[in-house]
């Protein structure tokens, strides 16, 4: 696969023994975020950091504010208090498409694919921000437009290979089974070659085999491209296995933040979350 996705890191000391990118400095930091909807508090005074190349999991019971947190990170919700610092710059109030253009891609809890389009076209939309040919060039499929379409198609085909969805590339996604839709959605996010990838419950509703596939994809993405991954997941086994660090939310507050082992040992977490169901 092309190495254009590799960001800053280079040289052999940037990699760990098993070939992963070494976890670097803070790439994104949320500080004292509070968010409410018409008086209902969704997030209260949340702070945590995301470091380059790491896999960070956000866990917590339903309604803990996990999805809201992702929505704040990619600019869909605007918190009343606190700030988001991305690559050392405090972010101004912005529209969601700006986050995408700044290298933050995401998938959704309830699949948000473009149902009328084929799997290939869905993945191609992920690269739309990189395509610059003008209207006339597109209208007559000339020069730059033709070149762009072919080049980006090649890139997307690599993603299709990687996600093993070659057979359905021309099928409208509305007709695909759930597991494949989840993969296409991941593909669409990957197509943007993001620095940070936000995954909202990528394994929800999957059977064991599908979950294993998805875990493999996530780890491979992190390993091959060094993509920083922030994911929300309910399956504790998965979270503890694949993530470098875990942030625990409950009722819009942060309970804990640390390595899987630290979190597992945290008494608050055990009381509020693990103690209940698991």
């Amino acid at each position, binding site marked *: 696969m092309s190495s254009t996705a590799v960001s800053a890191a280079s040289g052999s000391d940037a990699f760990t023994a098993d070939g992963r990118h070494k976890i670097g400095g803070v790439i994104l930091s949320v500080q004292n975020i509070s968010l409410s909807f018409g008086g209902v508090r969704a997030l209260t005074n949340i702070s945590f950091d995301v470091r380059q190349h790491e896999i960070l999991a956000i866990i917590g019971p339903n309604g803990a504010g996990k999805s809201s947190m992702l929505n704040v990170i*990619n600019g*869909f919700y605007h918190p009343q208090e606190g700030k988001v610092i991305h690559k050392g710059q405090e972010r101004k109030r912005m*529209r*969601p*498409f700006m*986050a*995408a*253009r700044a290298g933050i*891609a*995401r998938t*959704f809890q309830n699949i*948000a*694919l*473009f*149902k*009328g*389009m084929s799997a290939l*076209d869905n993945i*191609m*939309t*992920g*690269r*739309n*921000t990189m*395509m610059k*040919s003008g*209207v006339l060039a*597109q*209208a*007559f*499929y000339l020069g730059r*437009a*033709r070149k*762009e*379409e*072919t080049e980006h*198609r*090649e890139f997307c*085909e690599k993603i299709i290979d990687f996600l093993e969805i070659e057979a359905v590339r021309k099928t409208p996604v509305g007709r695909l089974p759930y597991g494949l839709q989840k993969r296409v959605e991941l593909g*669409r*996010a990957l197509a*943007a070659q993001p620095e940070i990838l936000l995954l909202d419950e990528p394994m929800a509703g999957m059977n064991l085999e599908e979950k294993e596939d998805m875990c493999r994809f996530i780890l491979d993405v992190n390993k091959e491209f060094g993509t920083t991954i922030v994911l929300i997941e309910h399956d504790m086994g998965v979270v503890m296995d694949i993530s470098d660090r875990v942030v625990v939310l409950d009722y819009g507050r942060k309970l804990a933040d640390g390595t899987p082992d630290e979190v597992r040992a945290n008494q608050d977490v055990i009381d509020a979350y693990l103690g209940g169901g698991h």
Partner: protein
Amino acid sequence: MLYREAGQFKTSYAADQQIFPILQDRVGIAVIAAIALGVLPLVATEYLTTTILIPFLVMSIAAIGLNILTGYAGQLSLGTGGFMATGAFAAYKLSTAFPDLNIVFVFLGSGVITAFVGVLFGIPSLRIKGFYLAVATLAAQFFLLWLFNKVPWFTNYSSSGVISAPPRAIFGDIMVTGSSAHYTAKYLFLLVFVGFLALAAKNLTRCHLGRAWMAIRDMDIAAEIIGIKPLQTKLSAFAISSFYCGIAGAAWAFIYTGSVEPLAFSIEISFKVLFMVIIGGLGSILGSFLGAGFMVLLPVILTNAPHILGLNIPVDMISHLEYMIFGALIIFFLIVEPHGLARLWQIGKEKLRLWPFPY
């Protein structure tokens, strides 16, 4: 068996990205083009050309335009008539102000002007959605017609407010507008225009702009989150859609009727074009043609059918029956195939791949 793509291997993505990747489609298009360019001009009578072929081509342009906006970008619009009127009046002003300007550029220029107007009325689409937007586009429909009716400058101070197409020629002396233009010349001129416009529309919808439109249509929030700018995308759809509608209006005034008053582009036209798009198939360029063909042919057939069948029905009864049958057929088609004639065609193709074997 007839329609089988087995054995046609694509060895590069460029080959797979052709506009018609399947051989049979390419042959089909070539045959249609040959008939339209070579056979129809020779055999079509004046009646067939002026009352069926020309309006069909004009309405196809409008249907492609609306299909871009509604079918691809998902913005429901009832302002088509107003945009067509803009095109007609822009073409009139351009051709009278610059008598030496080639008619091709008059048409393109009227499209560009209409595109600007379309963008203006597209701005509310950022906040207003669905049926609210549809009704809001009626503001464009009524306001534009009123404007052309009210401001005498648009009609060069004609006392009646009616514009009529000045005679214009292409290639030196082949008249394509005005009373001395031969109907076959008008038809061929329009046909070539439509060919280019349809090709452009097809290309646009399969490039990144088209994907952005469809993304906005299918799920606007997700589209925005993956980096598609909603305002620019919606406005580009309004602009390009209006460009097409503007050219359709110019062609209506200059080639089809020869002279129009603003009322000719009333709300009924807007509905008619919307019907074409829906009956033909939302999000399909082919569907735009099928829908336009259906909507142009149906009234002609309904009016003439009793005569052909040898029935002697008074004209008012024919008209009433026409209304009823028209309404009933629309409902019938929506029930049988809500995705339009284009989908029927697609299903037909899938059947043909296997035919005559059941599996």
